[in-house]
């Protein structure tokens, strides 16, 4: 065992020192000129990629939000349009039916008025006719009577007949 380590420092210390210097130098140089910049650049790029992805995601979200908003608006508009149409139709129906009822009522009223008018006129006409008929009858009766009662005998006869009738009664 002792022989194995005999002179180990004499022969091998130099190797350890030289390779140690080499490795530490490599570490220092690469750290300064390679690892820091490379890792920095990789980090920056990853960051920018991540940001880009995030903003794309955001844009997508925004897009879908807008789309859904648009759709909602459209839907609302459609509902409103339907409502307006329905209201308009109702209104129209109402107006039409109102017009119809009022026209009917007016018509009925006019007919009523006309009837009354007609009745009145008819009554007036009838009364006139009656008056005419009465005066005509009277004239005719007068003329007949005048004609009948031109002679006295016939008068007497009539009186006598009348009296007879009264008697009978």
């Amino acid at each position, binding site marked *: 065992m002792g022989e194995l380590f005999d*002179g180990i*420092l*004499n*022969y*091998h*210390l*130099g*190797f*350890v*020192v*030289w*390779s*140690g210097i*080499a*490795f530490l*130098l*490599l*570490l220092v*140089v*690469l*750290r300064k*000129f*390679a*690892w*820091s*910049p*490379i*890792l920095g*650049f*990789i980090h*920056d*790029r990853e960051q*920018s990629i991540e940001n880009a992805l995030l903003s794309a995601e955001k844009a997508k979200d925004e897009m879908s939000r807008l789309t859904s908003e648009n759709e909602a608006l459209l839907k609302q508009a459609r509902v409103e349009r339907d409502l307006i149409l329905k209201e308009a139709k109702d209104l129209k129906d109402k107006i039409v039916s109102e017009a119809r009822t009022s026209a009917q009522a007016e018509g009925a009223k006019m007919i009523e008025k006309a009837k009354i008018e007609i009745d009145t006129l008819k009554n007036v006409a009838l009364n006139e006719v009656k008056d005419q008929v009465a005066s005509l009858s009277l004239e005719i009766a007068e003329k007949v009577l005048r004609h009948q009662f031109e002679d006295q005998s016939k008068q007497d006869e009539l009186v006598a007949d009348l009296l007879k009738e009264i008697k009978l009664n």
Partner: protein
Amino acid sequence: MDFSDIFKLRKTGIGAVLALFLTLLNVQGLRAEEITGDSAMAGGEMHMSAAGHQAKGQKEEKFDPPPVIMEHISDSHYWHLWGETSFSLPVILITNKGVEAFSSSVFHHGEEMYQGKYYNYKLVDDKIMVADASGRVDKELSSHVYDFSITKNIASTWMAVILLILIFTSVSASYKKRAGKAPRGLQSLIEPIIIFIRDDIAIPNIGYKYQRYMPLLLTLFFFIWINNLIGLIPVFPGGANVTGNILLTFLLAFIVLLVVNFSGNKHYWKHILLPDVPKWLYPIMIPVELISVISRPFALMIRLYANISAGHIIVLSLVSLIFIFKSIAVAPVSVAFVLFMDVLELLVGFLQAFIFTMLTALFIGTAVDEHH
């Protein structure tokens, strides 16, 4: 990025682990018994335990794999290129009398002594010793000499460091140039790994404080990985077994130990020094906890070292078969197995880097954990 499908290859995994284990056993056998090549042929198997403690001198030409393999996976003052050609790397010695530097070519691969400024040096088993005039090694004087040479592994480590700095500064520059845009080219190769380390290693284990430790984790991961990969290249500029060197893994584990313990918060220390057990158990519990502080980085050190060394040993053993059998006919088999092992090592190289980083993050996580 999800790497869980790596673990889903359970069948392949078990097969690979078995193969690794068996080969390791065999290599152990090789080392232990110093067997000769001819006994290994029995039944055409690659079974290498066995017969002979034959006297070494009897067969001059016999091929002895263990020293060769060990030589290949250990550090050296030379960087072998091909054949007899190799780079002579600089030798730097810190002695009690002063510092001196010269090229390792002066040793002629250990064949010659060198008269330095302060001492007479000799290369024995690739270790620099002080020798007296007659060529005998003087242990007493050797202990005054510290070897700070730029060895093969050091050179390879520095190369990996420079490579990493070049790669990542260029990636960083392309981030600057294309700020905020999608990654491109090398950048798009590196970025998923960085994000993997951040999202699947650092954040789940450490929590929101992960940012402080990211440079360490990333550096550890890429440093281990690239060294594993460079180690797989069989020829120059690869060929050095950096992450299979226990001293390097020791260094990394030691750094992890320091980082973990210096970032330990009061919960962490309370858990170690005042655990929630009856007072009379403290004499047992506190040493156990203290051992666990050491043992976790220790396991990191051994795991990386053993895995990478094992891979190299297996590949070298497979190549050695050709020389053991002394037949070119074995070569296709060896090459096929080596190819398989190399592909497996590609996976292991990544996996070990991942495991090292993962466990480091886990240990840091236990040290900075706030809710207990």
